[in-house]
């Protein structure tokens, strides 16, 4: 009997993209058999080791499922159409906590300000960490432990020996591995419930929007000024809150930029001249300092998700590790800010290396595709903030 078999979209790679195949068969079993012998790999997609059809494979003859007919023994006539339809199912997951989750999160569930409602918010939240280094490490660890359901990590680097002094996501056995792979493994070890997206890429103007879009909150752990301004601008343009931090030798700073309530450029409209502020690689850093500051980033992120306490919106927290002095400075949105002000002049991502006056290192250029034409750096016309601010601390390393 001349019969048409419809190949479902996921199987078409096996049939050289044919959506429909003609076979000569008297029964469904014979039709599938013919398919399996003509197309390598088909059998493995249809049947388990014992030769039975996978439970999630539905076979229809015309409009009837074979379970309602004679199963694979169903007879076929000329012109019949056989359809292979894999099951369609999915969903956001359980509404109630599993026993494992109740145990795991018991200390959260006990807290009045968290409880089951708060824990559910954490499990439904998506957070992107830029950088799996000195700041990103503690932030990722604590967000994973807390049960933030979806974490993305952006880092193009490999684990280096010198990282181990502070980048606690990575261990000695990870040296040489991609940071995002090492990060993902550590996170999954702490909490297998977390969905982790490992983005082994440089963050740049060509991919920032695409990277940021699926996430609710951006946690900035970058270690250079171009990336800092890029992350800021992209967050503002996509209206995503950003939990920002920087460290420099013995000092740290943390702030939260909520859409509409100011951004990094409101504080620091222009980057420092190249070389004016040393990186961790140049000046060194006490390893535990980013541990504390990155943990504070995790804390602020959790507060934003849960809607509790007072996040550092409109405030800049400064921490002196040697004196254990904490200071907070009030900050405000600058109405003249070129990105988040009343009349933004920067509405697209620019060339941030050019903006910061730093030539791109050759390996960076190689890894990049051609970037969009730069629209030129912002003018440093914004007035200085009312309270004197510390030197910008660049490093998340």
């Amino acid at each position: 009997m001349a019969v048409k078999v419809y190949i479902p979209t996921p199987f078409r790679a096996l049939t050289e993209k044919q959506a429909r195949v003609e076979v000569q068969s008297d029964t469904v079993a014979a039709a599938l058999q013919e398919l399996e012998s003509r197309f390598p790999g088909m059998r493995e997609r249809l049947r388990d080791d014992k030769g039975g059809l996978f439970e999630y494979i539905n076979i229809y003859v015309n409009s009837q499922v074979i379970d309602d007919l004679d199963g694979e023994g169903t007879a076929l006539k000329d012109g019949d159409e056989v359809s292979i339809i894999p099951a369609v199912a999915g969903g956001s997951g359980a509404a109630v906590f599993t026993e494992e989750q109740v145990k795991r999160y018991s200390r959260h569930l006990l807290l009045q300000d968290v409880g089951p409602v708060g824990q559910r918010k954490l499990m439904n939240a998506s957070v992107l960490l830029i950088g799996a280094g000195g700041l990103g490490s503690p932030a990722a660890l604590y967000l994973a432990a807390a049960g933030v359901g979806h974490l993305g990590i952006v880092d193009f680097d490999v684990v280096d020996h010198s990282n181990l002094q502070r980048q606690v996501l990575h261990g000695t056995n990870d040296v040489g591995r991609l940071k995002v792979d090492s990060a993902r493994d550590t996170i999954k070890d702490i909490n297998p419930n977390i969905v982790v997206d490992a983005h082994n890429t440089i963050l740049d103007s060509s991919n920032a929007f695409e990277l940021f879009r699926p996430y609710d909150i951006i946690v900035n752990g970058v270690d250079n000024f171009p990336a800092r301004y890029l992350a800021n601008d992209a967050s503002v343009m996509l209206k995503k809150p950003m939990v920002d931090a920087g460290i420099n030798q013995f000092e740290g700073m943390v702030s939260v930029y909520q859409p509409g309530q100011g951004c990094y450029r409101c504080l620091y409209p222009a980057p420092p001249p190249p070389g004016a502020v040393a990186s961790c690689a140049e000046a060194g850093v006490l390893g535990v300092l980013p541990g504390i500051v990155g943990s504070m980033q995790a804390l602020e992120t959790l507060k934003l998700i849960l809607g509790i306490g007072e996040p550092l919106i409109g405030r800049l927290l400064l921490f002196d590790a040697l004196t254990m002095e904490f200071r907070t400075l009030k900050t405000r949105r600058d109405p003249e800010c070129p990105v988040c002000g009343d009349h933004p002049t920067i509405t697209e991502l620019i060339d941030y290396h050019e903006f910061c006056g730093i030539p791109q290192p050759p390996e960076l250029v190689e890894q990049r595709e051609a970037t969009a034409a730069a629209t030129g750096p912002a003018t440093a016309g914004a007035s200085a903030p009312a309270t004197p601010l510390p030197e910008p601390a660049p490093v998340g390393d």
Partner: protein
Amino acid sequence: MIELPRSLAEALVRHARSGAPDEVCGVIGLKDGRIVSLVPARNAAGTPRVRFTFDDDGYRRVIEVERAGYEVGIFHSHPVSPAYPSATDRAEMSATWPDCAQLMISLRHDAASGPEINAYRIDSRGGVTVEDLRIVEDAAGTG
């Protein structure tokens, strides 16, 4: 890149809102990277607030879209979680519909800022690729 005509985007939003707090689901048909057909299917899951499953009728919708010669994809809604494939979505779709277009709509911020619609593909290992989804104006004579 996947194009979604405005009329279908609006139909998706209406359908998702009418089904809330349950998840809604259905079939999409694509031609040359553009969604040209959006067919709701009944959500036959036992716990439709957090799961979706097609039933017989749903599979017949799939057959119809296939007969029309379109690439088949799937849409579903997350009433309270993000418009992103959940662990469940990944686990299921990586086995059954790998690399197919997944259109997702979330209503979690609907009251405050409107629905979120995104498109993805989930590969056979559960990895997610974000598709650049563009809402386009309906061409004259289609929609």
